[in-house]
């Protein structure tokens, strides 16, 4: 099982949309795919019409009163399952602190699922915390959406600095441009500097589009209702590009 986390210190950059659509695309290709909504806001769960509720909350999972497999919900899309969000995830940092090897808890929780699923997507909450450290240790790939704005680039630099100071083995960081609006001059200018200054940024860019926003109205992955739209095709292209790194 390959673990891919959509992660950014900054919020509102398209993490959830990416996780939902990539998990859906993987399932469409016949992969058994699982999405864990780690964000207490529960947007990914909402996008699949699944209640943000995990029996026993984060405490139940961390104390092994419940196994992850017990709380998995099948979505309406064949091959795609979801571990819903729970409001208790807001305290995950505190709960993790009370465990042994607090930075490896998520890795150990997902281990039993590795035979059943081909891909696990982790949709992370925006922050840099003990939960993030858990994600870094559990993930094979870190997908970092970058909006071409100075603030987004600033948080990306913070993340790079963090990795320089505390290197994590065996993780591939794949930043990509997200929610780009070519009509905006700021986006165009920042975009130039992204590709000029930085190596390893994926070629595929996800455009800012109302179809993506509609996901929260349709409560379904973009590909399931508007397969041929520009952003849906961009997500497909992104998934293909990511697969070349797996």
């Amino acid at each position, binding site marked *: 099982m390959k673990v891919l986390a959509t992660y950014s210190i900054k919020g509102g950059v398209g993490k959830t949309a990416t996780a939902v659509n990539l998990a859906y695309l993987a399932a469409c290709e016949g*992969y*058994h795919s699982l999405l864990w909504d780690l964000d207490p806001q529960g947007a990914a769960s909402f996008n699949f019409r699944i*209640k943000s509720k995990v029996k026993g909350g984060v405490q139940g999972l961390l104390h092994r009163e419940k196994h992850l497999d017990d709380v*998995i919900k099948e979505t309406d899309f064949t091959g795609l399952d979801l571990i819903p969000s729970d409001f208790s995830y807001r305290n995950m940092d505190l709960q993790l602190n009370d465990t042994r090897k607090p930075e490896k808890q998520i890795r150990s929780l997902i281990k039993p699922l590795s035979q059943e699923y081909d891909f696990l997507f982790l949709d992370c909450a925006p922050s840099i915390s003990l939960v993030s450290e858990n994600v870094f240790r559990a993930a094979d790939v870190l997908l970092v959406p970058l909006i071409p704005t100075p603030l987004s680039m600033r948080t990306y630099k913070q993340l790079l600095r963090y990795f320089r100071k505390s290197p994590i083995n065996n993780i591939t960081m794949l930043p990509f441009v997200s929610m780009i609006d070519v009509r905006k001059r700021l986006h165009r200018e920042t975009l130039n500097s992204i590709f000029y200054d930085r190596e390893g940024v994926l070629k595929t860019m996800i455009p800012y589009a109302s179809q993506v926003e509609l996901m929260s109205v349709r409560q379904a992955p973009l590909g399931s209702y508007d397969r041929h739209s520009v952003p849906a095709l961009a997500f497909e292209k992104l998934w293909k590009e990511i697969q070349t790194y797996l």
Partner: protein
Amino acid sequence: MDCATSRTYLDTYDWLVYRSGGVLETEADNAGMWITWRSHGADQIYGRYTISQIPRFVSDLKVTGFRERLKKIVDVRALLPIVIVSSRIHVFSVLNRQEKTVLRIEIQSDSNPRQSRARQKNRQVILAKRVHVFPLKGYEKTARSVCEVLQQKCNLVPVVTDPLVTLLEAIKSRPRIESKKPTVNDPDQRADAAAKSIFLQLLETMEQNEDGMRKDIDSEFLHDFRVAVRRTRSLLDQMSNVLPSPRIARFSREFAWLGKVTGPTRDMDVYLLSFDSFKLLLPSEIRADLMPLYDFLNRHKITEHKRLIKALGSEHYRTLKNDWKGYLTASPPKNTKLLHAERPVIDVIGKKTWRVYRKAIKQGTAIRPGTPETSLHQLRKTCKKLRYLNEFFQDLYPKNKVRKLINSLKVLQDNLGEFQDLVVQRISLQQFILAMEKETGLTGETRHAMELLVFRLEQRNKQVRIEFAERFEKFSSASNRKLYKQIYSTQKHSSGDDQ
């Protein structure tokens, strides 16, 4: 939703999908075609996605997790249509308050089950309607309540058989899931009768695979046929003083011929099956240069297969089979001068197995880093004999102990097998270079790719040879020897000498 579909159930000749607890079905309607892999009873869907045509092999499916998982079960076997049925389906989704599907219900009306795509002449067959309740993971409670309602309020009866089984019954067929491993289970049976019963089971396996070999459905038919021939030859080798020597000599010669005429086609199959792994041994930029080799192998496979069909249709083969069957089905003689023919099989086989084991130890111990490759090949052949003896007569001994012996032997055999294959592949590839040059000419790039492949195989060959020592050490361990001795060399009824 209401739709008319045509469903084709697929499985391998030996029902590998069904045996693994699954069912593979393709479904086609006006909107397209899907392939679904599910559990018996459809409690669990392992995978479902769209396809453009019914796959013949797993490799015809696009590369996905579905394909990789299914490949682990069916490997290189062809997916054959086992039953085709027309169906009318009404699909209902049960939604919760969030309008999320928590349960799928399908009412299925199947008609005209048939074995092939040919139009049915008989009158229309309509099967009983079925209501399928598909629970979704995490929402099983809803499925339980709905089933209760269906049973109590609608008086529906729960069915335990999978729809596939019902359809097979309708066409008077059933899954063949019996094990095909030839064995004997009566320790007191006369040795000659026990041997003949194994030979008969092996002959049956050969006959069952003939049709698939002729039609070249997949490479496993020929493989299984050849394994049965090899097992027959191996057991014949152990039959001194159990069966008359002239018979052993004649049939050993005949089965050696059969092994020889089926060999070239199998060789081509093996190279074609290994082609992808050959490519992976080369840098990605020159992998395409190997394609002329693929075409060459395919061409020769066709020629060799024609020769094989000719051999199968020959008078020689027919006579061999008839004489062999006639001999095996004749009752054992009441009076015989053969020392072991009438003795209980457990005594005779125990001693023979122990002897083959000691021979393997002797041959293996003599192998040093500089020993010629042929010694490893000799040991490989002895190990095969030992393996077959262990397997044929495993039911006469404690199961867990024999399993242990077989497993330890397997580890050594894997190493010896890979070593020998690599030796042969290296030599063959060098011959192919010359043959391709003669037949169609060879570009510099293809020659380079093939020479690099030979080099890589040589490197791997050296590595496998190094690994041999460790594997043999485990096989010849004191505990393993103790187990062999305990099982095979302590039979009570021993009498007379083996020659």
